[in-house]
């Protein structure tokens, strides 16, 4: 295992110390490991909280700030945070208008957020939760834990954060988050494994001539192991199931998000985006906004994911609204 770390046990704490020092204007870090917007709580504003295992940076801590999250709870690497964190986050950002939990659909995240919501409600804070489950690689059925929450989470946090920033109330913000969730689809793939620092060895084995299609953001094996393929072929393997699932139809306006898994250089993501543009054009799907970069990662895994969000006017307006966080910033 080759990593720029001091020790697996201190990694998350030290990274948080680095983040806090780097972004004094945006965030502060409070016990027990919660990243809170510097000016929280904001009176009358719905608080937007997310969290999950570490190792997906910049998600979620890099999205705390104006127009996006009010707090993020980083767990151990690839392990959901504990309810104490979400409770502390919820209390820190509650400005009297309630708090929305944006939860990725992973068994651990669901249970820990649920416990935290019960505890917060017990302390008199109104909490609503929306579960993001956008990964079309997973069959959504009684026989799985349901679709995983992946790239759509980034888009939901931006759009919902903007709505909360402009003062929309908890029910409206929650409904918007559900609308994003209903209109977003993703799928990812890996060329290489990642290594959980505490485990010290790769999460999975993969041959030099293989790739894994439909991988989750923790290196969970995906739909199928395939022979190595070109960028165009990989893009088709990811985007075709996405387009077919919602389905996205001719005339739809979308936000296309090509995401790097952590170890994939930006130049390759643009090659993938080029093919996304061609495939969407072929189906008459109009890409109205895009995001290209490594925003929801799996440590140093090489690979990418593609997310499409069907936009409506309000989502587009809220996507364009000002955001000022460590990882996303405009206006």
């Amino acid at each position, binding site marked *: 295992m080759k990593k720029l770390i001091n020790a697996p046990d201190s990694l998350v704490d030290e990274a948080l110390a680095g983040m806090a020092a780097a972004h004094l204007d945006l965030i502060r870090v409070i016990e*027990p490991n919660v990243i809170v917007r510097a000016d929280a709580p904001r009176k009358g504003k719905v608080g937007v909280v997310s969290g999950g*295992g570490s190792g997906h940076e910049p998600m979620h801590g890099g999205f705390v700030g104006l127009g996006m999250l009010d707090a993020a709870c980083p*767990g*151990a*690497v*690839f*392990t*959901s*945070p*504990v*309810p*104490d964190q979400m409770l502390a986050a919820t209390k820190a950002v509650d400005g009297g208008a309630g708090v929305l939990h944006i939860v990725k659909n*992973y*068994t*651990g995240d669901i*249970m*820990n957020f*649920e*416990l935290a919501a019960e505890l917060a409600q017990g302390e008199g804070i109104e909490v609503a939760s929306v579960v993001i489950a956008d990964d079309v*690689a*997973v*069959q959504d059925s*009684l*026989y*799985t*834990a349901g679709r*995983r929450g992946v790239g759509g989470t980034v888009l939901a946090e931006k759009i919902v954060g903007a709505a909360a920033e402009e003062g929309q109330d908890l029910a409206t913000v929650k409904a918007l988050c559900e609308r994003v969730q209903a209109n977003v689809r993703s799928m990812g793939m890996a060329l290489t494994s990642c290594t*959980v620092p*505490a*485990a010290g060895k790769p*999460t*999975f084995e993969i041959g030099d001539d293989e790739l894994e299609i439909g991988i*989750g953001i*923790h*290196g*969970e*094996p*995906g739909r199928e192991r395939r022979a190595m393929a070109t960028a165009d072929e990989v893009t088709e393997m990811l985007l075709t199931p996405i387009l077919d699932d919602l389905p996205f139809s001719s005339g739809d306006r979308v936000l296309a998000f090509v995401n790097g898994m952590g170890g994939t250089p930006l130049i390759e993501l643009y090659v993938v985006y080029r093919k996304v543009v061609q495939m969407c054009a072929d189906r008459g799907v109009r890409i109205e906004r895009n995001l290209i970069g490594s925003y929801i990662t799996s440590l140093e895994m090489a690979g990418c994911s593609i997310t499409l969000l069907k936009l409506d006017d309000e989502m587009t307006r809220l996507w364009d609204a000002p955001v000022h966080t460590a990882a996303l910033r405009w206006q």
Partner: protein
Amino acid sequence: MTEIGAAELIRGVELFAERLRERKAELTDLDSKIGDADHGINMDRGFTAVAAKLPELSEADLGTIGKAVGMTLISTVGGASGPLYGTFFLRLGTALGDRRTVSGQEFGAALRAGLEGVKQRGRAEPDDKTMVDAMAPAVDAYDSRIGEADPADALRAAAAAAAEGRDRVTPLVARKGRASYLGERSAHHADPGATSTTILFESLRDAIAGA
């Protein structure tokens, strides 16, 4: 002996903590095959925290011990294991109440309360290939034995039933947790949660039998 006391419960938790540490790599390895390679790491982190709390609980009642273990797990483990094992010990503690010793039957009722908590929290059904598939037969075996036997015998049966349950679901396709994403590829791998639950019942067995 026919009663189970605080010393036995603490010893059982200690043994569980020791064995999780010893088998951390094995559990993580199992989890890397069908999960996300952190079960051993997370359980060890939580039970290291639990072990640090145990000395101050030596004079406490059974309920306090169970609840302290549960709360510590919820606050330190994270993932799915934290809420599930945490809920098990919380409910166990709640059922045991402020007693310093309980009968074998009472301990069995507490184990069942723990099991019910796990099933509620995880919404897992039998054969979903989760820790429930080891825990449910273990509690059933304990119950069916405890009428005629002392707790040590019942826990021997429970541990054997847990191992049998773990092995019985190994060939199955997982339907809960991260293993479920694998579909058919999850078959023929032991479930990490069912494995650690087996270790839990073996630890309780050895703590009581050795007492």
